[in-house]
């Protein structure tokens, strides 16, 4: 059996930032477990730029962003095992993992940081009817084939879903010589970043059809086309709007799901909206000493925010190991109306600093007001020119406000037009 103060599951941007912060806070004994052959996570296949504008103040590619953290992990001599899959977390914070060289590993941790990231929703989850030949894959899988393996998965492409990976792949496939026929989005708005819609679709003349979906997939061995149709306000296809589009590939960018199998198996409470753990402001779950950060906690649109959040979790885990994170009365947070969720879901009243609340809205708004209420009483009101589901928002609860709160109080965030 191995012993570490902190075991970090996942060596992507979240896991690395959490580990580095924990080291900075004085924890020597840290082990990162990464299932891929290298650290860096999904950033390794994101060769486009746009990373790091917030955190580094410069525009980096995915591998460049990851590399800055990999270098620090190496400089700090933080231990990591790649090509290693965590199989199980036990109730007493033991981690079972497996790889080719060590075989089955049994690791006792004082604290565990969950940083497993997320996965893409597959076709099956959408229940799209039609045939089941080749040529249907998630946008992220296509991204790996093109950017890592160097092969084209198709020549004539329809993309379903306007999530960021779908938008990025529309541009990427076009640059590699494929014809991207269109991007269809079920909702009346895109869930992707505005800059991606402009730079990946508009700049290449790729049409984005909103309130439109794929209702049938054709072709026996290989996709030969799809039927698309407009949808009504209940997202049901409108008869008469069906049209056939010839293509050999359908890429799906229809949402990301936090990868919480380990979390669920050990009995950690999950938030039904985020599909991630319910956490406090240090991202500690209801399971003592287990923290979560990055896309396994809730899906982020910018890696920069993943980094910030993971540093918070790393600091929290370090405090826990050092005995500085003590039990406290808590208040809870609650999204109201268009505010779909808030992370963290709980705040400890003994926190000595400010607490940033991240939230996401379920609709687009122009010139709206974000209102924060404590037990029904307004404490913050802030005008926002634009709010969109694709862009995460935040508000700061100052420590001064926090000190006026009491046990079991409720902080609500809503949007008023």
């Amino acid at each position, binding site marked *: 059996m191995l012993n570490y103060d902190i075991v970090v599951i996942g060596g992507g941007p979240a896991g690395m930032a959490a580990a580095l912060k924990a080291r900075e806070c004085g924890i020597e004994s840290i082990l990162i477990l990464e*299932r891929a052959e290298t650290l860096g996570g999904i950033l390794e296949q994101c060769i486009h730029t746009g990373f790091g504008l917030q955190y580094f103040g410069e525009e980096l590619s995915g591998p460049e962003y990851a590399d800055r953290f990999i270098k620090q992990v190496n400089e700090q001599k933080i231990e990591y095992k790649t*090509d290693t*899959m965590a*199989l199980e977390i036990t109730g007493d914070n033991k981690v*079972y993992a*497996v*790889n*080719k*060289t*060590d*075989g*089955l590993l*049994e690791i006792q941790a004082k604290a565990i940081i969950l940083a497993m990231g997320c*996965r*893409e929703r*597959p*076709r*099956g*989850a959408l*229940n799209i*009817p*039609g*045939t*089941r*030949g*080749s040529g249907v*894959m*998630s946008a*992220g*899988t296509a991204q*790996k*084939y*093109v950017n890592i*393996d*160097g*092969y*084209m*998965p*198709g*020549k004539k492409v329809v993309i379903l879903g306007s999530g960021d990976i779908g938008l990025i792949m529309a541009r990427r496939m076009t640059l*590699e*010589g494929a014809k991207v026929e269109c991007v269809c989005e079920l909702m009346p708005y895109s869930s992707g970043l505005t800059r991606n819609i402009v730079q990946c679709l508009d700049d290449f003349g790729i049409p984005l059809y909103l309130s439109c979906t794929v*209702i*049938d997939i054709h072709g*026996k*061995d*290989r996709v030969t086309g799809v039927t698309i149709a407009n949808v009504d306000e209940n997202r049901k*296809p409108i008869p008469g709007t069906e049209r056939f589009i010839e293509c050999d590939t359908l890429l799906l960018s229809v949402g990301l799901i936090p990868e919480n*199998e380990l979390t669920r198996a050990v009995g950690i409470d999950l938030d039904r909206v985020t599909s991630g753990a319910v956490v406090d402001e240090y991202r500690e779950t209801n399971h003592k000493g287990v923290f979560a950060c990055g896309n396994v906690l809730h899906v982020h649109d910018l890696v920069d925010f993943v980094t910030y959040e993971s540093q918070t979790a790393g600091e929290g885990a370090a405090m826990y190991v050092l005995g500085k994170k003590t039990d406290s009365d808590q208040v809870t947070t609650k999204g109201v109306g268009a505010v779909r969720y808030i992370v963290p879901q709980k705040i400890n009243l003994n926190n000595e600093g400010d607490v940033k609340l991240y939230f996401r809205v379920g609709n687009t708004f122009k010139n709206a007001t974000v209102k924060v209420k404590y037990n029904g009483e307004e404490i913050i009101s802030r005008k926002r020119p634009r709010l969109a589901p694709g862009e995460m928002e935040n508000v700061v609860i100052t420590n001064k406000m926090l000190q006026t709160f009491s046990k079991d109080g409720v902080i609500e965030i809503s949007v008023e037009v």
Partner: protein
Amino acid sequence: MCYDVAVIGAGVTGAFAARELSRYNLKVALIEKCNDLAMGTSKANSAIVHSGFDAVPGTLKAILNVKGTAMMPETCKELNVPFKPIGSLLLAFSDEEMKTVKELYDRGVTNGVHGLEIIDSAKLHEMEPNVNPDAVGALWAPTAGIVCPYELTIAAAENAVVNGAEFMRNFAVSKIDYDGSVFTVSDGNREIKAKYIVNAAGVYCDEIAALIGDNSLHTIARKGEYMLCDKTVGNLVSHVLFQCPTIMGKGTLVTPTVDGNLLLGPTAIDIEGKEDVDTNADTLALILEKAQKSVPCVTTREVITSFAGLRAHLECDDFIIGKSGKNDKFINAAGIESPGLSSAPAVGIMIAEIIAEDAGAEKRADFNPVREAPVRFRHMTNEERKAIIAKNPAYGRIVCRCETITEGEIIDAIKAPAGARDVDGVKRRTRAGMGRCQGGFCGSKVVELLAEELGVEINEITKCGGNSKILYERTK
């Protein structure tokens, strides 16, 4: 070289025919038009081992179902295929349907089904708490069970190959000549010679028989669509739940699968042609509606995939197994629809006995009925895991994380007798890609492993044979 028997069609019927024939001193070829075993009806059906109360007494369906189901536990043990004898409940929602239950009970007793019992609403809801409260009673059939149909097919075929049978894939028979003692079977490119032919071509049985001038068969492809739900709802029910049968089939069922998922379906629609395995939105909605009649709390939220299969239906509504009227060395195994999976072990024996008797073949002393158990890392204890990784480090790398499938298991599936040659073949043998992410993460790794083991470029690898290549040329 001349084979003694060419079995045409590597579904569950052909695989069991090949296995049973390989018990004798007969040289067997198992010929398949697709790139893998179990590519037709055998990969997309209800995965149920029926107790045998449905079929009309005296029919082959009735006789072989009861016999096959009785053999299933032992056969699955020999072939190392999981079989769960969970029993079935046929639900009645009215007094009228209780009459059907009684009729089927009587029919089952006549067919020789053991343990049948008519139970009342209280007992039913005690056995299945999630069943619709409106159900007034049920027919309990304890001998029914669940098995993975393609796993059973693959295991039977592997066992046949280990015992000397040869598996030939991508061999779509288009011509059969007979010179009075030997058949020449050809796909236009290749040909093989055989003294006997077993026609186990599923929905194509009629077309294969027609190649020797036997026009007595007419198969109708009857499509059934299904939805498969995540393992998180696999325990909603603990028995196979049927509704009262209709003229088109056994009705919509709700059942756990042997791997712990929940299966809903099938529909029954006679189709034109024999290739249409599309699913369609209206039908899927209908399945849900019907499934909710049995189990109201079923939703589409947990659906991970949908699929369709074709039943090889004959107008006579029975199996036709025996020598063709045109040529007594040509053995038809036609109209093998439900309960074809349940009957398969018995159908295999029946076919083998017909040929062995005609040919005067002897049973071999060295036949090995056991198919070695594949490594199943996910079912191992940690001690077993340590031991197997020490023996072969490839079992220490997890490729499919949803189902916890290792690189070693995938390589085994490719190297197996009649092994996998495409991504779907790996999936059916190992479950890699069968979980909730449906291959999003492991798909590209499986492609790499196939390319490496088969010694080809990764853009040669297909999803399911034919034109189903996954990748085109290199990027710029």
